[in-house]
């Protein structure tokens, strides 16, 4: 049964959403959301929305309590509830834990950062239909007749019209009484996408840089997951050599050694070739590095790989250059020069956590 309060509850949730959206940029630059995520829910701590009143400043106030202890005994750091006889009905400064689904979060992200919807390529014409029984209709095939509802209708009609008789032959079902199960078909374009994350794990990429990558890729995942039914994510790390790893390793490995970016691109190319044929997959490549490539020759090799092969196979190639304590490298500029206005290449410089949302905009703002 729907309660009257649901309306107020719904309204409250709307307000909460507004609050979350307002602060979304703040949440984006903080990593804590990632830690608290459940399966498809994420809980966001919000200070309780309170209506302001003229009240006493509470900290100086103190209060009266009951129990053991001498003068000076510590009661605790947390605010004890005001002992003014209102315990229980006057919530203090509680933190509200709001649960949002990842889908809603993506929706908010899209609205807040004004990201265009993605136009999936690939099996545009191949659609899958899903049917679900959702209700009752007065027409339909006899095989779907809902006996109980039909019988009820018949009883209602015969009682109302006074033709009801207890004795058999009982009341008769007429056409108007009949009720059928009804269904709705939803058409889902079958789109599948894969994300390839590549990260430079050479000595110059520190914890902070990895944190940035972690946060940014969380939001990218959220957004792409919102658009595609199935999403596969692969991780590649590289220093002088590239290898494919699992998520855990991806975010936590730290290695030293040089940086040969082309090794990663070559591996990415291999993966797309074998696992993600262009006709069926929307492939996204994200590469994060501090941009200190080993040699100019290797950079040339990277550009060649991208231009000749990789770009044709994927929807979007994004390169994010993370500022490291050793300064930023040349790679970003080289790419910029090589692909001045390529539609499928997005480049972004991520100086700090605060610029993550801007970089997300740069990456996903093309709607590809």
């Amino acid at each position, binding site marked *: 049964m729907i*309660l*009257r309060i649901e309306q107020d509850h719904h*309204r*409250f949730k709307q307000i909460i959403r507004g609050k979350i959206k307002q602060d979304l940029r703040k949440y984006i630059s903080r990593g804590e959301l990632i830690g608290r995520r459940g399966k498809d829910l994420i809980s966001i701590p919000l200070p309780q929305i309170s209506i302001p009143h003229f009240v006493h400043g509470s900290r100086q106030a103190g209060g009266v*309590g*009951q129990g053991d202890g001498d003068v000076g005994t510590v009661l605790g750091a947390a605010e004890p509830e005001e002992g*003014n006889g209102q*315990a229980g009905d006057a919530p203090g400064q509680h933190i509200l834990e709001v649960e949002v689904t990842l889908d809603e979060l993506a929706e908010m992200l899209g609205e807040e950062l004004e990201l265009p919807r993605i136009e999936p390529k690939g099996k545009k014409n191949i659609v899958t239909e899903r049917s679900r029984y959702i209700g009752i209709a007065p027409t339909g095939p006899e095989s779907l007749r809902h006996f109980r509802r039909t019988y009820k209708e018949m009883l209602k009609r015969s009682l109302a019209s006074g033709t009801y008789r207890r004795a058999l032959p009982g009341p008769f079902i007429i056409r108007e009484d009949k009720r059928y199960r009804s269904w709705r078909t939803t058409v889902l374009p079958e789109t599948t996408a894969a994300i390839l994350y590549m990260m430079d794990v050479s000595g110059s990429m520190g914890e902070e840089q990895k944190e940035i990558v972690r946060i940014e890729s969380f939001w990218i995942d959220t957004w792409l997951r919102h658009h595609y039914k199935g999403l596969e994510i692969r991780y590649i790390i590289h220093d002088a050599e590239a290898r494919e790893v699992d998520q855990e390793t991806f975010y936590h490995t730290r290695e030293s050694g040089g940086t040969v970016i082309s090794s990663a691109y070559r591996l990415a190319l291999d993966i797309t070739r074998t696992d993600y044929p262009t006709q069926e997959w929307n492939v996204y490549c994200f590469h994060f590095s501090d941009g200190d490539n080993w040699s100019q020759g290797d950079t040339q090799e990277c550009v060649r790989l991208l231009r000749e092969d990789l770009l044709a196979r994927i929807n979007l190639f994004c390169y994010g250059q993370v500022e490291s304590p050793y300064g930023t490298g040349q790679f970003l500029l080289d790419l910029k020069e090589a692909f001045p206005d390529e539609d499928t290449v997005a480049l972004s410089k991520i100086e700090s956590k605060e610029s993550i949302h801007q970089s997300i905009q740069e990456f996903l703002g093309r709607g590809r």
Partner: protein
Amino acid sequence: MSLSPSLAALQRAIEGHARAYGLDFFPVVFEVLDYRKLNQVAAYGGFPTRYPHWRFGMDFEQLQKGYTFGLQRIYEMVINNDPCYAYLLECNADVDQKVVMAHVYAHCDFFKNNVWFSKTNRKMMDEMANHATRVRRYMDRYGVDKIENFIDTCLSLENLIDPHSLFIVRERPKAEKEESPRTARRLKSKEYMQDYINPPDVLALEEKRILEESERRKSFPAEPTRDVLKFLVEYSPLENWQRDILSIIREEAYYFAPQAQSKIMNEGWATYWHSKIMTERCLTDAEVVDYADHHSGTVATHAGRLNPYKLGVELFRDIEERWDKGRFGKEFDECEDLHERTRWDKKLGQGREKIFEVRRFCNDVTFIDNYLTEEFCRRNKMFVYEFNSKTGLYQISSRSFREIKLKLLFQLTNRGLPFIEVADGNYRNKGELLLRHRYEGVPLRMDYARDTLRNVQRVWQRPVNLSTLVDEKPRLISYTGETFEEADLHEPAA
């Protein structure tokens, strides 16, 4: 849902016991609800219908979560109405339902007989439903957002009322006499006697007095009023629907005020009687352990927190004992022999009578003021705690009776809220509003104060000012509708 036959039988039995003890109550209607409906009713402050507002939804969500995670559970809820409505949680065991019923009858007795409740609307159930209808109608006509925003604004001011004002019958202003003379009255005299009969210095004095008088009459309101809401309802340039909503909020605030004024007593009284009825009349052998478990949960104290159930019931029992044994009055107070005091028993047996009297005339402030004794404080291990800014911790600061009582009274006075009054409705002669915070040693929470002031301005629509003390210095905080200004206040405002 109506009561099952077994619950109805319980109700009859408990009502009988309550009456036999001398409790006097409105008829009580019990409703059995599942936890979702109970949470709804609780979020609505005990009523089945309230006007639509998101904060009820917020409370609902919290109750719902608390219930789901097993943190909290509402056992009893009762509203001050005639007939009294009370709710039982469907899944509670019979022994719990008994406790709740006994508890409810005592609450209802309190509502009916305590003098502070005497001015509340006993048909509030209907009134609340009417309020809801009115607000819904406005929402249909003017749009949900507009109404909701205005309700938010009003709710921010809802505590600016004066619960005592209901009991003060001020003399009605006599029909204004014809404009009294603006100049001093001269006695008739011959020309040459003028200076003697009407001496100029006396005339000047008289003139000055008249001027001051008319000056004072011009001040508006004539006396500072603490019923800020009433002042705003009467004098703000509001649309009719706004005025109506503001008065709805005000009316509901007055309805709930006595409950905040008598929380300790009310809960104490109900706890006193449920334990009396249960332990003396109602409990079966099988129920004793469950009852003891739940009762002890109700009156449990946690360090640094005052449990109104506990304090209330102990104080009532203390009063009963003192009046049974005659431990009051001059003779007892002056007795300094500790031994004698502890054995003091005059066998007066006036305890029961006394607590009924107390429940009739007191509210929490007078209850504590009159009946909290040093011995009681010591026996109940009461203390004062304070925030230690060096360590960032709360610490026990004193166990002295004087300080405990002072602190308690301070927290209970004006329901623990700061005194805010309308000092001038035509401040600076520019139609600005001046509110004055009567400083009692604790400063206002300034961020809230600013936001609240903003809401006052939304209603008053001219600049508003608040005089208060910030860091022990008098300050005037003004909000013009666009910007905040703060200035030192040298002369007392208005």
